[in-house]
Structure formats: structure tokens, C-alpha cells
């Protein structure tokens, strides 16, 4: 119906004449605005990524001489070579991030879905009271200081792996999205399971979880992304370099190349090595983001799904 020149590009002119009625002027104007504006916006979004990739692949001396550029003036993989030649610190950070992401996602998804299931059970008398108990925490909070002191002074979790997982385990937004998904599962399923003698927990494991796969995938990916990208908890609670997750490692490296030098010396690099500082920062940025960029095309649609479920009842 509203096909444009791009979709019929490979048809001969006579076929095109027959198969399409002439395009009204207003549609042509809109198409022109649409394609132009969206192309500009898309370039605006992708440009910084290209810049970082290109910078990471540029010879250091050229960066010092000419600065960062969109197209590498002289191609070099030196920065990546150095990163992978002395990978101990980087791999350690990767290990922490993968461990935290895996444990946090599994545990978080289990707790979120179990909580949401109870709140979605329409025959549960106190569901509104408990929903409010969770929801209220998004309206009012004690602020950073008491939360920080609780974790550091009372729970004594500074410099532990637990502190990278525990504080982010549950999130009210995820509970709301999951609950609204589970509420749409027909009640008859629960009723008939009850008649068959299934207990409340069994209903959750055997019926609700399998039926909630799309929501579990979406929320699971949201949780995983949050853990992968987390640097805040490390900024507050981690000073031991053996426990630094990837993003925080990158953060430290951006601000302090000397730390990088020391780390490399510790892992066996030559002492007076001349590090390609600028390209190395960019290469490390790519290495820290790499898995997300690679997975992105495949996981993107689950996030779109999650946003549109969430948008119904924010």
C-alpha cells in the first residue's frame, strides 16, 4: 500500500508504473523528512561507538599528533595486543563480572518471579497490602547515607563478592512488570491445578513459571544487563583490586593510567614499557562493552517486549 521507491528498486520501470499508483505529494514530503531525520538520529546514536572503535585501532603516535578521528589515519592493533598479552587483571575483572551477573540473574529472577506470583494470585487476601509494602519503597527512601552505613558498618560487606550481588537482587519495577504479566494468565489454570491437589508452590513451579517464559526472558535480561553494567556498588564498596568488576576496572583505568601500568607490571610486563595510553583506553572500552555489543542484535527484542509490557502499567 505505502511502498516506496526503495522497496521496488529492482523492478523494471514498466512494472513499477503498472503496480503503483502515483504517490501523493504529502506522502513524498513526509517520506523525505522521515528518512532524512531518522538517518540523522541513527547516525547521532551510532557515531560515538564508531569513534571509539576507530580510536582503539589507531596508532598511538598518530593519536598524539592528530587526535582521535573517525577514520584511523594509521591502522594498528597494538592496544589490543598489549591488552591480551598481559590479560591477568582484565580476565580477573571479567571473571568477577561474569560470576556476579550469573549468580545475580539466577537468584534475582527466582525471587522476583516468586514474589510476583504471590502478588498476582487474585485469591490472596493481602495482595494489595503487600504490593503497597513493595511499592512504597519507590516513593520514599532513607537516602544514600543510612543505606551505605548499613552495608559497611552493620552488615560488614565491604570488599566482598556478596556486596556486588545482594543490594541489586530485587527491584520493584521488575516485580510490577512480572506481576502484570502473570495476572494475565487465566485463573482457570490455577483453579484446575488446585483441584488436582497441587500446592501453592507447586503451582508456581509447574504451571506459572513455564507459562511465564517470555516475561522471565525479558526480566532476566534486564537484570543481567544491570549486573553487567554495574560499577556503582564497586565504587562504593570495593577497594580490593581482586574484586573489581569489569565496568569499575574500566572506570579506574580511564581516570588513572598509572594504575594500569602497575597492574601490567605485576602481571609480568616489562617495567619501563611505553604504554599507548590513549588507544589503550579506547580498546579497553571496547573489550568491556564487547559482549553486550555482540549479544545486542539477538537480545534487543526482549527489551522492546519488556518496555511495552511495562508501559501499560508503569
Amino acid at each position: 500500500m505505502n511502498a516506496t521507491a526503495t522497496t521496488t528498486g529492482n523492478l523494471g520501470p514498466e512494472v513499477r508504473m503498472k503496480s503503483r499508483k502515483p504517490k501523493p505529494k504529502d506522502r513524498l514530503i513526509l517520506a523525505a523528512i522521515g528518512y532524512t531525520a531518522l538517518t540523522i538520529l541513527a547516525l547521532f546514536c551510532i557515531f560515538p561507538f564508531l569513534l571509539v572503535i576507530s580510536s582503539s585501532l589507531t596508532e598511538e603516535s598518530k593519536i598524539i599528533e592528530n587526535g582521535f578521528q573517525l577514520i584511523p589515519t594509521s591502522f594498528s592493533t597494538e592496544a589490543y595486543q598489549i591488552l591480551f598479552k598481559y590479560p591477568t587483571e582484565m580476565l580477573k575483572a571479567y571473571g568477577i563480572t561474569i560470576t556476579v551477573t550469573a549468580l545475580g540473574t539466577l537468584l534475582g529472577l527466582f525471587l522476583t518471579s516468586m514474589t510476583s506470583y504471590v502478588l498476582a494470585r487474585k485469591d490472596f487476601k493481602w495482595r494489595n497490602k503487600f504490593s503497597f509494602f513493595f511499592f512504597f519503597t519507590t516513593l520514599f527512601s532513607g537516602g544514600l547515607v543510612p543505606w551505605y552505613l548499613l552495608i559497611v558498618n552493620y552488615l560488614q560487606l565491604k570488599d566482598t563478592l556478596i556486596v556486588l550481588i545482594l543490594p541489586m537482587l530485587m527491584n520493584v519495577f521488575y516485580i510490577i512488570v512480572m506481576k502484570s504479566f502473570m495476572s494475565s494468565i487465566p485463573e482457570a489454570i490455577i483453579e484446575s491445578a488446585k483441584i488436582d491437589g497441587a500446592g501453592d508452590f507447586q503451582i508456581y513451579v509447574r504451571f506459572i513459571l513455564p507459562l511465564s517464559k517470555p516475561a522471565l526472558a525479558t526480566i532476566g535480561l534486564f537484570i543481567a544487563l544491570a549486573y553487567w553494567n554495574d560499577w556503582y556498588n564497586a565504587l562504593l564498596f570495593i577497594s580490593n583490586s581482586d574484586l573489581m568488576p569489569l565496568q569499575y576496572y574500566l572506570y579506574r583505568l580511564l581516570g588513572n593510567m598509572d594504575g594500569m601500568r602497575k597492574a601490567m607490571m605485576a602481571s609480568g610486563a616489562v617495567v619501563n614499557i611505553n604504554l599507548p595510553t590513549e588507544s589503550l583506553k579506547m580498546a579497553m572500552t571496547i573489550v568491556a562493552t564487547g559482549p553486550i555489543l555482540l549479544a545486542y542484535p539477538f537480545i534487543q527484542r526482549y527489551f522492546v517486549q519488556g518496555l511495552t509490557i511495562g508501559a501499560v502499567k508503569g
Partner: protein
Amino acid sequence: MRGHGFWSDVKKYRTLLLMLVPGVLFFLLFAYIPMAGIVLAFKQFNYSGGIFGSPWNGMDNFRFFFESGDAWRVTRNTALYNIAFIVVNNLLQIFAAILLFEVAGKWFRKITQTVMFLPYFISWVVVGAIAYNLFNYDVGTINVLLNKIGMESIDIYNTAAYWPVILVLVSAWKALGYGTIMYLAAITSIDTEMYEAAEIDGANIFQRIRKITIPNLMPTIIILVLLAIGNIFRGDFGMFYNMVGNNGLLFSSTDVIDTFVFRSLITSNEIGMSAAAGFYQSVLGFATIMLANYAVRKYDKDHALF
């Protein structure tokens, strides 16, 4: 109907209640107990006394926070930035969503939407690295370009005046895909019969957008904007901290309540004042969110938060 009230209900729902225990404990521990820690705002904190054993000092923490002038500066910055973000981000997102809906090429639509959503997925640390690439004085891309057209380099990291523009652009960049998808979902759910009727009536496409798409989008716009206004006193710590860091030269135009609270706690160790600033933010935030929710309720009861 045997049993009597509460305890028989507890028995009836025991499995469900047990299943709620981990979640309830989690929020008790990390949300409700810290709320009690608000008393710190009225105390002279010392580590031996802890939260409850430290001596009271009345309103001293608040007096210090307000008399230093910090309170006004960070409150103003937080609110102004959030207002700018709300206006710019929503306008761009609505614009992009309408165009994405109207533009025909399926592949073009898919690719642009995918590309626009990409910034949402990266951490603020990586955004900080990108900013370094763009804004660095010696090797930054912006200065490279300025030099190419014969202009002097500009010292972005030492000039407070540039940052409001930069931060608005960064926020727009990161949120564009996310918001566009929300608005696109709302446009897609508009009844197609209305469009067909408009076409029969001979409306051109711009009239159709103005008379059908935008009015039908209005409820979504109003609700998203009101909810964002409810959060107007909450600064995005990740963004401000990774873009600006602890660069004091920029604080006049970039310091928000969240970065101020963080610095007072971690860098200058003024725990009581930091708690006071946090408490002030919580109260302001609570009041605005209640007001915003009241407004949403008036407008459309179904979309109110509570």
C-alpha cells in the same frame, strides 16, 4: 466459614506467605531499615556510636547545608536539568516515533530503531570513555574538528558553561531509543479505522498526524511527563558522576543533589550533613511524586501509580 479471622487466614495462605518472606526481608533490610536511619540527619555522627548511639545535634546539619549555599545550587541544578531532559527527550522521542510509524521501508525501520536503542545498553562508565574521546583538550575529536576548520581548541573539561548543553545532548542520546519504543507502542495501538476514515475524508498525511496521531498519543505523553516530573529532584548519579567526576571547576553548573550527597559522604566524610541533604531530597521527592500522582489521577484514574 470456621476458624476466626486472622490466624486461620495465616494458616490458609501459609505457603504463599512463606514465598513472600525473601522479598519482604530484602525490602525490610535495604529499604525500610535505612528509612529509620534518617535520624542521622539530626545527629553528629561518629563511628563508635553508630547510627543510634551518636549524639543529637538538632538542626545543625541542615543549617550547615543551607547556609553554605550548596542546597540552593544543587536543588536548582537538579530541577533545571531534569526539566530540560523531560522537554528535549520527550519531543525527540515523539518525533522519532511518529516518523518510524509513518516511514515505509521495513528494513530501514528495523535498522534505525535498533541503532537508536543501542546507547541504552551501555554503562555510564563507557559513556564517560566516549565523552573523554570527544572532549579531551589535546586529542579530543571536537578539538580535532575545530582545529581543522581553523579554530582554537576549547577547554571543555574546565569550562562550566558548556556542560548544560553537553549533558542535555548526552541524556537525549542515551534515552532516545527507549522512549521512542514506548511512544511507538502507543501509536501502534491507535485504532486503524480512524486512519482509514481520515483517508476517505481526504485528509493529507500531516493533517492525519496532527488530528489523529498526536491527540491519541496525548494520554501517554501526559502520563509519562507527569511521572517524570514526580522524579524531578532525583538526579541521575551515574550520568553526572561519569561525565563530570570530581572536577570542582564544573560544579557550579553540574553539581546535583545526588553527586553532592555522594561527595559529602565518601570524599569529605561529612556524614551528618550528607544524611541531611539526602533526607531533604527524599522529602522533596516524596512531595513531588504525590503531587504528580494526584495530577495523573485527576487526568486518568487508570494510569495513576496508586
